[in-house]
């Protein structure tokens, strides 16, 4: 086995038992790591009782997995997974940073965390020294204070473990803010200051386990690769290909706040009431003025799409965040009627400090603001906050209430869909039509109505994705190609950054996988068998769902009502989606995925892929008759 450390850590926080676990080669060959392996592990352990597992109970698992490409591929990530408190299915949520590398250097391919700690705790790993430590001093603390504490305490601990080593580079960590501690379903798992695994809401899963942070330090080296020379050659090749894409290195996604509005009419504006704007104040150049560091990458990254923004003067002096990237420019900007970089940076900073996912919290804030605009939620309902579009102070105050579940925040912290259901009950009218989500997950900031956004080339992108609103894992036809979900599964399972792979051919990725692992894998085999198998499992678990919500196959594979309305402004004004074409694509996709006309995996598909137990389970749940 090459490219893998060869063992996982299984930690039961309830009994404080820590043990090493091996995964057979055959499973690794089929499921690779990250998202794929997480799906398999979840199915094996929780599959039989999936519908009754509350994602926010001790029963749920938190999986933090690397993949074989983690650490070698120039662009590093780690995959966080479990039963999602947003979709009630499985979402493979990746976050950048060196945590995966440190973990592998420490000798582990991943963490399988079960149970619930009695007291707030954090997990400390330094090579084979693994310890559950007390986190009460940082419980309730925001990002910066948490990071400061973790750096200080861990360095002290590492010095005890390796006395006389000299100056130690601080370890990597994943942590949650107040948002996760309070089990807000919009909570992210954060790395560094603002890198976040937001989709899925795994910050809340950590909070439900009383787990504040994970710290890893590995003195290495990384596990051996199968063909070192070829791996190095490919890295060289990738570097060259990547820096030829100068634009992405220059701007990251930070020029998107203007571009996706003005050029492709696909940016959320005031809770998706519009998707077009031409605000010059929101151009990349205007953000550039606040970038104190224009190329910031994680270990080995040739793309460096990250920028560091700092507000050096003015009302919000001291605020620091990365970029903001496009998703935050839109969801914590245009979606809230904010068209000033300074205010957007401040709100991103607030969101980072609270440990809330920028997309999920921006969506719920925009939703609340539209209800305020329509007079459905009053100032009284909002604890005295007048939630006017563009009022950054008001949004910051509400974000804080959401993360700490105070007043109206308690409802909104349930995420956009669940909050809409509650507010509908509270007000006795249907506000679900204003909730822009896909199966409980707020949708990425790439609209589909104009048909011109390259992220969502097919209108079924969100509706048919097994990760629902995740814009990095959209469904597309034909089912096996670069922009299809099956290719996204490769990225999330081998665990590398797809931003650093944009300049590469599909073949490059599979070649690299082979050079690292020594295991042959063709693109065809991946699309027709292995990725398809992971897709079936994710789809099955998404449909089984529960306990609070169960999505109906086909009926819930639907777009938010607003997306069926014609675009109200811009060059694409009046343009709307064609229902017939949408339904046709959907059916075609179901068919290609081996699902029946309702989108439920067919028995023969499951049998062909060796997933007989999934068939049994789907029958039990009356999903297949």
């Amino acid at each position, binding site marked *: 086995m090459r490219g893998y450390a060869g063992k996982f850590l299984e930690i039961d926080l309830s009994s404080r038992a820590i043990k090493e676990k091996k995964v057979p080669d055959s499973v690794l060959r089929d499921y690779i790591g990250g998202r794929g392996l997480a799906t398999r592990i979840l199915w094996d352990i929780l599959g039989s009782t999936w519908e009754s597992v509350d994602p926010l109970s001790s029963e749920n698992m938190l999986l933090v997995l690397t993949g074989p490409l983690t650490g070698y591929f120039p662009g590093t990530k780690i995959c966080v997974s479990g039963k999602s408190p947003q979709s009630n299915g499985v979402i493979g949520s990746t976050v950048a940073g060196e945590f995966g590398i440190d973990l592998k250097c420490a000798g582990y391919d991943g963490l399988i965390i079960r149970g619930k700690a009695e007291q707030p705790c954090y997990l400390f790993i330094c090579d084979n020294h693994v310890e559950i430590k007390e986190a009460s001093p940082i419980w309730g603390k925001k990002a910066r204070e948490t990071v*400061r504490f973790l750096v200080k305490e861990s360095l002290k601990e590492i010095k005890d473990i*390796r006395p006389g080593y000299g*100056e130690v580079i*601080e370890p*990597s960590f994943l942590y949650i803010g107040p948002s996760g501690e309070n089990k807000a379903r919009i909570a992210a798992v954060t790395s*560094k200051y603002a890198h976040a695994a937001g989709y899925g809401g795994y910050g809340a899963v950590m909070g439900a386990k009383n787990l504040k942070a994970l710290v890893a330090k590995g003195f290495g080296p990384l596990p051996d690769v199968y063909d070192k020379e070829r791996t190095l050659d490919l890295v060289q090749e990738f570097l060259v290909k990547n820096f030829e894409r100068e634009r992405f290195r220059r701007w990251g996604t930070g020029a998107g706040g203007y571009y996706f509005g003005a050029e492709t009419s696909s940016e959320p504006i005031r809770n998706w009431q519009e998707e077009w704007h031409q605000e010059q104040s929101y151009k990349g150049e205007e953000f550039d003025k606040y970038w*104190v560091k224009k190329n910031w990458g994680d270990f080995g990254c040739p793309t460096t799409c990250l920028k560091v923004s700092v507000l050096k003067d003015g009302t919000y*002096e*001291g605020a*620091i965040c990365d970029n903001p990237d496009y998703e935050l420019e839109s969801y914590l900007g245009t979606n809230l009627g904010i068209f000033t970089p300074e205010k957007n940076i401040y709100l991103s900073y607030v969101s980072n400090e609270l440990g809330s996912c920028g997309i999920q919290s921006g969506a719920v804030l925009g939703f609340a603001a539209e209800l305020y605009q329509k007079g459905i939620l009053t100032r009284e309902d909002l604890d005295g906050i007048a939630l006017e579009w563009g009022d950054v102070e008001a949004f910051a105050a509400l974000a804080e209430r959401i993360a700490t579940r105070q007043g109206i925040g308690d409802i909104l912290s349930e995420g956009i869909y669940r909050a809409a259901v509650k507010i509908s009950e509270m007000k006795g009218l249907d506000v679900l039509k204003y909730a822009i989500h896909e199966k409980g997950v707020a949708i990425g900031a790439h609209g589909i109505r104009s048909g011109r956004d390259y992220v969502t080339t097919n209108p079924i992108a969100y509706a048919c994705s097994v990760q629902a609103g995740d814009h990095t894992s959209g469904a597309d036809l034909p089912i096996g190609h670069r922009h299809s979900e099956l290719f996204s599964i490769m990225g999330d399972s081998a665990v590398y950054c797809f931003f650093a792979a944009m300049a590469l051919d599909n073949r490059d990725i599979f070649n690299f996988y082979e050079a690292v692992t020594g295991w042959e894998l063709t693109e065809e085999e991946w699309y027709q068998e292995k990725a398809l198998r992971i897709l079936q499992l994710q789809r099955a678990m998404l449909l089984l769902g529960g306990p609070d919500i169960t999505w109906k196959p086909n009926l819930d594979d639907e777009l938010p009502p607003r997306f069926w309305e014609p675009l109200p402004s811009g060059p694409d004004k009046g343009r709307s989606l064609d229902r017939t074409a949408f339904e046709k694509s959907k059916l075609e996709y179901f068919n290609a995925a081996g699902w029946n006309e309702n989108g439920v995996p067919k028995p023969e598909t499951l049998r062909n892929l060796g997933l007989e137990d999934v068939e049994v389970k789907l029958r039990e749940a009356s999903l297949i008759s």
Partner: protein
Amino acid sequence: MLVPGIEIPHLCFQCEDYPCVEACPEGALSVIHQTGAVKVDVETCTACGLCITACPGKVPHLHPDGSSIVICDLCDGEPQCVKACLEGRWNALTLLPREKSISYKMLAATPKELTRKVANHILGEKTTKEVLG
């Protein structure tokens, strides 16, 4: 990461008076004449750590296996880190000739000192203070 965006390589500056070489009781450290880099004789080194204490920047560290000290030897005049940095076009590291008029020892600093200094400059004092405490 002490401060986001301010991850600085922490390397030997080749002080003019080589306090590390002076401090070694075993004579395991020597100066490579051609490059000015410090060479560690891994056979003789006992990993006592006195060179770390003596270094103004606390640059030397133990090899992860604990057997000897690691100090940058400038890869015999062709530093691979500089090569990698230029190949990846990050262009942050450059190979410069050694100048007699520069006091290299004054540049030596611990990672924390270096980070604070650069961060103050780039992020501003207020943010740096809030980040580093």
